[in-house]
């Protein structure tokens, strides 16, 4: 469970990214965060696995207080269960798909094993199983830079699955994909969320994609939460409030927009 209590984030140069955010996300929810660029979506997500620190308020994730006391080994153990999926996939392009997925497990390895890049048979099988779950088992030994964008994102996804996380944080996971692939990836996300009860928090740039797949939507504007509720409650009014303007073509991915 993730609980924000009056969390604020102010950068050293004075910019206030988030103010007074209070939020509770239960295990197994699939949540989308929408809003303008710079409204605070990325900041919010990065607070959860402590890639950024809060400057005020309390944040509790999985019964662990995420504050300045969480560091070193404890922080690394904490992060093992929370995974990030990025817009630019963040794969190591020159190695094979399988090696990329295995990289997920390196944090648990000792010094010698990491140095030689050694993974056990069980590690291999778990990684391959994860690849199978997203349907690209056949690409296991191919170099990562020879895949299409959608396939790369699926590799990134299986990288997170291989470690059985409790929370997945997705930062604009489909923003650089074409609509068909985006649809596939989001379906994967939904399937994972439902089958394995993993909490998924996704920053979404495209409103229609968000609405189509998630059950809960959080709207951020100017660092504050202005909407928090089920996707069916998102009306045009709500969207105007969040984006402070009419929706443009940029905010929509699929050709037909159905709001509500």
């Amino acid at each position, binding site marked *: 469970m993730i609980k924000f209590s009056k969390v604020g984030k102010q950068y050293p140069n004075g910019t206030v990214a988030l103010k007074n955010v209070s939020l509770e996300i239960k295990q197994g929810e699939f949540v989308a965060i929408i809003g303008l660029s710079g409204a605070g979506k990325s900041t919010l997500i990065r607070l959860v696995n402590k890639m950024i620190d809060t400057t005020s308020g309390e944040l509790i994730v999985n019964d662990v207080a995420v504050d300045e006391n969480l560091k070193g080994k404890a922080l690394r153990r904490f992060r093992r269960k929370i*995974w990030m999926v990025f817009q630019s996939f963040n794969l190591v392009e020159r190695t094979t798909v399988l090696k990329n997925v295995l990289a997920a497990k*390196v944090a648990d390895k000792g010094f010698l094993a*990491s140095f030689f890049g050694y993974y056990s048979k069980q590690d291999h099988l778990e990684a391959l199983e994860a690849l199978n779950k997203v349907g690209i088992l056949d690409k296991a030994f191919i170099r990562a830079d020879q895949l299409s964008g959608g396939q790369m994102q699926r590799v990134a996804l299986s990288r997170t699955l291989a470690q059985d996380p409790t929370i997945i944080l997705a930062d604009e996971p489909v923003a650089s994909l074409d609509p068909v692939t985006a649809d596939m990836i989001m379906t994967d996300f939904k399937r994972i969320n439902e089958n394995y009860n993993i909490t998924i928090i996704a920053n979404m740039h495209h409103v229609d994609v968000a609405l189509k797949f998630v059950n809960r939507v959080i709207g951020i504007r100017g660092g504050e939460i202005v909407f928090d509720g089920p996707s069916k409650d998102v009306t045009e009014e709500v969207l105007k409030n969040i984006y402070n303007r009419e929706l443009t073509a940029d905010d929509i991915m699929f050709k037909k927009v159905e709001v509500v």
Partner: protein
Amino acid sequence: MSKEKPSFFDRTKIVLRDTLTPYVSKKARTHKTDAFEVVEPYPIGLYVFIVLIIVFILAIDATNVDLIMFFGNLDNMWRIISRLFNPNFGFIGRMWGPLIETIQISIGSTIIGAILAVPVAIFSSSNIVKKSIIYNPVRFIMSLIRTIPVLVYAAMLMFIVGLGAMAGFIALTIFTFTIVAKMLYEIIETVDMLPYEAIESTGANKFQAIRTAIVPQVLGSYLSIVLYNFEINIRSASIIGFVGAGGIGLLLNDRISWRQYEDVGMILLVLFALIILVETLSRYLRKRLT
């Protein structure tokens, strides 16, 4: 009305005016058209030339250039050269040992230098070690070490570890170490940092993140750098013997002192072949790596 050709005097005046005025007035360097105005940069070519002449004269004085003696002894030089081109093939027997030693020195020092360079290169990379307090001094010290030529190190080391291959070995290791570290950190800085952050966000420590995300990206270039250094080291290894630090240079020096230029020619021939061999091999391997 027919145009008369201007007199020689007038033409000279015009040429002089056109060439000399740009030196004194900016207006003479300005070219105007309807659309824009262009100012030629100051013509410093002449000044550069004058400076070069002055330096040239100073240099001749400082280095005791004595052309008379040079041309007087030129026949000596031709004699030596002709003997050089008449290599003594029977000399190979004596060359074998020192030659092997040269190769050994180059291989050993390249490997050790390359290994030692890795941690130093990591500490000189601004994208891994973000604080400039760390990477700037490291880079500076490395470039300081690099200014001293290898042979000077070899000469100095001989007073510490004695005559022989050890001095050359250490000198070459130091040299390889500095160059590989510099080339390596330059490569590391061009690497894509995103996978590194991704792995770090999964809970891996810095070492593991480097190993899984950065090493695969630089491995090919690293090996290429090491091979390139091996090329350089073969040449240097053959030379350090001159000051007594082992390898074939020692033999070379000896043969020259005894004026056995046929033997010298043989050594040079074999060296030539060796270097070409190493260079071709290295070029081939390096193409395969990238």
